[in-house]
C-alpha cells in the first residue's frame, strides 16, 4: 500500500473510529468485544483499502462490524453462552444510569439480528432500506424485526404506549 493510501487510512480511522467503536459496543453489548470487533473490521478494511477508499469506507466497516457481531452472537447462542439476562418485572427507573443498564440488558437479550436492527435504525439513523442493505435482508424483515424488538424494549423500559410503539415499528 502506498504512503498516501496509508495516510488516508490513518485519517479515516482518526476521524471515524470512535463513532464506529460506539456502534460496535451497541451491536455486541460488551466493551472489550467491541474493541475487538472494531479492530477486526478495520484490519479487513485496511486489507481492502485500495478498493474501499474510493467509495465511502464507513458503510463497509459498519457492515463488517454488524455482521461479525451477529455471527459471533449466533455462535455463542449455539453453546448457550450468550449472557441472556432475565429482564426485571419492574423496570428500574430511578435515574438514567439504571435505565441505561436496563436498556443494555434488554439489547443483549434481543436476538442478534433484532439488536442489529435497533442499533442501525435508532443509533445510526439508517432508513429501513439502508438497514436491509447492511444486513442483507428484505425491508419487510427489518420492519418485523424492529417491531418485535421495540415491543421488548418498551416492556423493559416500562413504556406506557404499546400501540404507539408497534404502530411506528410497522411504519
Amino acid at each position: 500500500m502506498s504512503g498516501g493510501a496509508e495516510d488516508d487510512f490513518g485519517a479515516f480511522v482518526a476521524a471515524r473510529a470512535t463513532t464506529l467503536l460506539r456502534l460496535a459496543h451497541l451491536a455486541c453489548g460488551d466493551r472489550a468485544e467491541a474493541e475487538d470487533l472494531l479492530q477486526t473490521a478495520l484490519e479487513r478494511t485496511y486489507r481492502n483499502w485500495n478498493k474501499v477508499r474510493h467509495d465511502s469506507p464507513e458503510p463497509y466497516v459498519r457492515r463488517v462490524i454488524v455482521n461479525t457481531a451477529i455471527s459471533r452472537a449466533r455462535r455463542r447462542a449455539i453453546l448457550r453462552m450468550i449472557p441472556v439476562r432475565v429482564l426485571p418485572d419492574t423496570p428500574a427507573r430511578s435515574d438514567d444510569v439504571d435505565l441505561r443498564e436496563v436498556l443494555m440488558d434488554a439489547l443483549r437479550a434481543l436476538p442478534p439480528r433484532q439488536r442489529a436492527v435497533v442499533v442501525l435504525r435508532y443509533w445510526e439513523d439508517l432508513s429501513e432500506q439502508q438497514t436491509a442493505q447492511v444486513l442483507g435482508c428484505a425491508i419487510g424483515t427489518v420492519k418485523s424485526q424492529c417491531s418485535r424488538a421495540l415491543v421488548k424494549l418498551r416492556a423493559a423500559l416500562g413504556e406506557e404506549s404499546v400501540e404507539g410503539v408497534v404502530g411506528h415499528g410497522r411504519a
Partner: protein
Amino acid sequence: MAALEDRIRHLMAEETAGLHVPPDLGLRVMRSARRRRRRSVLAALATTVAVAGAAPFYLAAVAGSGPAPIVTETPPPPPAVDDLPPTGRPTQKDLGDLGDGKAFGHVKVGYLPEGLRWQNWSVDFGDSYSTGYDYKGDKHGFYCVQIYVFEDEAVLEVDDRISIHRQEGEGQEVVIGDRTGYMVVQNVGEDGMKGTPTLFLDMGERRRAEISFSPVYAKDLRTSEAVDRELRKIAEGLTSTD
C-alpha cells in the same frame, strides 16, 4: 417521533459517550495487518519453493487467508491441484516422525475413516501445523484427509476466514459434542471439481482445527451425507493433549 425511540437514542448516546479509541489505533491496525501479511507471504513463498510450482491445499489454505496479491504471485496450479501430495520440503520445518500420525502438535486424532493411514508428512509453522492421511501412507500420494491446527495468533486468521464464509452464507454452523464448528465446502483447488469439504472446529479460545477432505476422497465417499458424517466423526475424536 415516538417517545420510546427518542428515549432509546438518548440512552444509547449516554451509554457510549465515554467510549473513545486510543489515538494510535490506526497504526496498531496497520501493524497488525502487515504482520499477518508477512506471515501469509512466508507461507506462500514456502509453498512456491517447496513444491516447485504446485500449491497443495495444506499450504494454499494459509495463503488463501492472506491478501489477494499473494495468491497471484504463486505459479498457476496444474490440474487437480487439490489432490497433489505435499512433497519435498527441504527448507520446511515439520513435526518429525509421528508414528501412526494420530498425535501431532498439541492434538490427538481419535477417529480416522477406515483404511486411512498417516501420510508421513507434516508442516510446522509454530502457531499452525498440519498433516494428512491417505489410503497407503504414501507421502507422494493424493491426500484424503488433512488436519490443520491453528493456535494463538493464528486463530485470528482462521476466525477471519470463517467470518467471511459466514457473511457470504457459504456454510453452516455445527455442534460437535460440547463444541461448535463451521462446515463449508471451500473452493481451494482450481481443478473444476466440487471443492474441499471442510469442518472448522473450535477447540478452545486459542485453538482451531480445519479438517478437510480432498475432492477425490469426498467423491469416494459417494454422498454428501457420508462426507458430513465422517467430517463430524473426525471432529468429535479430535482432542487437545495439553
